[in-house]
């Protein structure tokens, strides 16, 4: 997927002005947060399970080569194939080759963020295949030719009217007078359209929430059942997974599954959790005849052993973005690439470079809610800070910001001067804004005052107030 992360600031201005988007985001916040809270309140062990989940993933990352090799041998023993790919280009070419070898025309797809990461649909189209997204949200955005705006709810930015528009435009064979007012009508129509595609498909591509080293199984977690039809009906099943998805055993996957749905949608468990091991067996009446796993690195192994290693614990539940005030204001598209929200702010610079995505780790107030809800306890704010430091060290921050920081640092190292300066500034600004209690315009702070007023200081600095308080407390005591 082509990144527009470098244009984050423009994207944000656009998003804030988009009324439809703002309405959708308002709805989203209420739903996800409340559902998650209710689900975890019902499981007293939830916090302890977070520790267990973290320990499993940390163990895997320290032994990643071992578990990947074991996973590979088990897949091969079950009659499947494993394709190791270092880059997005290698993965695209591998999948296109599997499709060519299968003589494929129609290729159905379950929802996969890694597939978005490598932009497989565009590639398959260029190669003459017809890729069809089958997750309802992904299908809608494929019709609209836009990227997902959320990792578990790709069409969360759209209203049902938007969906109806897309269906009228795409399903030309149907009666143009039909009613698509009710969501049930939309769902029935999508179901009927996609049923045909499921049956036509020669190859089905799914992602994976887990890879199980013990058994060579791949795991998908869905609610619609589209991933299951995608991987059951065609002759060939291709699993596209990034390599950090591996866990040792079925027990380990079960532990993390207890965290996943509760953190993501607030469900106790998703409707379909499916474990696939190799192709269909002799005597099986259905299932694919070929099973391929495409294992993608794309920069992840280089994160091991760095301050960003812990990011590889991420299970893509979306809780961080569901609780992020920045995401809630601007939505997912503003982030400009596949992974939005706090996890995207950390992962995107790792995968496409801090020069292309430096704005993202800066788009945080460091309120810490993302870390507090992350089921894998990933220290997201700390890692965003690491990216800011790297961005600064690489000389990528704008000159005004560097100059400003330099000036502040010089000033802050001289406490006497600092106190004098801030006292003068607070006094001056307090007098200027005394009438309205706020300032409409400030030199050098247009970035703030162009959009909102600056509350006027009350005339004294924090240091002064602190000293006065201590003084009066001392007098109280002395009395």
């Amino acid at each position, binding site marked *: 997927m082509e990144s527009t992360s470098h244009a984050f600031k423009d994207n944000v201005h656009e998003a804030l002005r988009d009324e439809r988007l703002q309405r959708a985001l308002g709805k989203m916040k209420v739903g996800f947060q409340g559902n998650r809270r209710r689900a975890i309140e019902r499981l007293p062990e939830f916090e302890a399970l977070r520790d267990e989940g973290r320990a499993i993933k940390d*163990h895997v990352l320290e032994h990643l080569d071992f578990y990947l090799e074991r996973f590979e041998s088990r897949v091969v023993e079950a009659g499947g194939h494993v394709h190791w790919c270092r880059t997005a280009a290698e993965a695209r070419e591998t999948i296109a080759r599997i499709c060519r070898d299968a003589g494929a025309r129609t290729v159905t797809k379950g929802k996969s963020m890694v597939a978005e990461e490598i932009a497989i649909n565009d590639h398959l189209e260029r190669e003459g295949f017809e890729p069809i997204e089958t997750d*309802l949200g992904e299908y809608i955005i494929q019709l609209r030719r836009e990227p997902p705006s959320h990792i578990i709810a790709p069409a969360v930015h759209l209203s049902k009217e938007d969906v109806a528009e897309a269906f009228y435009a795409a399903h030309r064979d149907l009666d143009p007078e039909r009613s698509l007012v009710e969501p049930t009508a939309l769902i029935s129509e999508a179901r009927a359209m996609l049923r045909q595609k499921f049956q036509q498909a020669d190859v089905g591509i799914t992602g994976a929430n887990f890879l199980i080293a013990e058994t060579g199984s791949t795991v998908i977690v869905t609610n619609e059942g589209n991933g299951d039809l995608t991987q059951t009906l065609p002759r060939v099943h291709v699993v596209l997974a990034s390599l950090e998805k591996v866990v040792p055993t079925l027990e380990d996957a*079960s532990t993390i599954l207890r965290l996943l749905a509760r953190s993501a949608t607030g469900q106790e468990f998703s409707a379909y959790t499916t474990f696939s091991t190799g192709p269909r067996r002799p005597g099986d009446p259905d299932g694919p005849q070929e099973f391929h796993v495409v294992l993608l690195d794309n920069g992840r192994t280089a994160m091991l052993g760095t301050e960003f290693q812990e990011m590889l614990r991420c299970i893509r539940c979306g809780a961080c973005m569901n609780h992020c005030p920045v995401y809630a204001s601007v939505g997912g598209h503003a982030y400009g690439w596949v992974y939005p929200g706090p996890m995207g702010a950390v992962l995107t610079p790792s995968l496409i470079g801090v020069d292309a995505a430096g704005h993202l780790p800066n788009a945080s107030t460091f309120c810490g809610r993302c870390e507090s809800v992350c089921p894998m306890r990933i220290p997201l704010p700390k890692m965003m800070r690491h990216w800011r430091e790297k961005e600064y060290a690489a000389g990528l921050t704008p000159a005004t910001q560097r100059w400003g920081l330099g000036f502040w640092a010089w000033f802050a190292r001289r406490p006497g001067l600092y106190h004098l300066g801030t006292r003068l500034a607070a006094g001056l600004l307090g007098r200027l804004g005394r009438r309205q209690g706020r300032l409409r315009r400030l030199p050098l702070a247009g970035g703030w005052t162009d959009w909102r007023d600056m509350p006027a200081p009350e005339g004294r600095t924090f240091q002064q107030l602190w000293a006065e308080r201590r003084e009066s407390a001392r007098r109280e005591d002395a009395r």
Partner: protein
Amino acid sequence: MSEARDRILGSIRTSLKRGPLDGERLAAAEDRLAAHRRNLMPSRARAAGEEGIELFVRMATEVAATVERLATPQDVPDAVAAYLAQHNLPAELRVAPDPELDAVPWERRPTLTVGRGRAEDRDATSVTGAVAGVAETGTLVMASGPAHPTTLNLMPDTHIVVLRTDRIVGSYEDAWDVLRARGALSRTVNFITGPSRTGDIEQTIQLGAHGPRRLHILLVDGGDGDGASA
């Protein structure tokens, strides 16, 4: 792509500042894989016996499955016919070619048309068994094989599951023990919790996105030694 394989494994080892695992660390990792050690188990997942059955029913009902308890497999045809009539569904069934379901006397309800085998798109209702029911979340465990085509779990609008009460276990881990005891893992193991659903349109949950819109569980009081053991 063996070059890519070597490079990726090499990159992992370079980043972790070590060579391939050996000695004690290798043995420890092998042990961990072989032991199938359980991690922390929620107390809810330890429900057993009648308490486990109650929890299973409660959790399955919560996710919009429907549950009916029957005394014997002999009662299945009547219950199925009544369910179909109640929902105005055609009296046609695609039944899994499962020897355990051979014990069901379909001929008691001659109006039911019963076909066996995998599902096709025109099949409106399927009937299958299940390897286990997991009480902690009301989850059904299905394993693919000659006796249980996966398409039966997915394609029909209505999925009816016949589950013996002695197949209800507390946790997912218990279900893995049952599956491991059966031998090599099937090509597909489905953990199914309620009917198909989507929240992709304005976050409003709608049932029947791609899979069944109705999931009806017939709990048959079991363990009568009819040869149908796990």
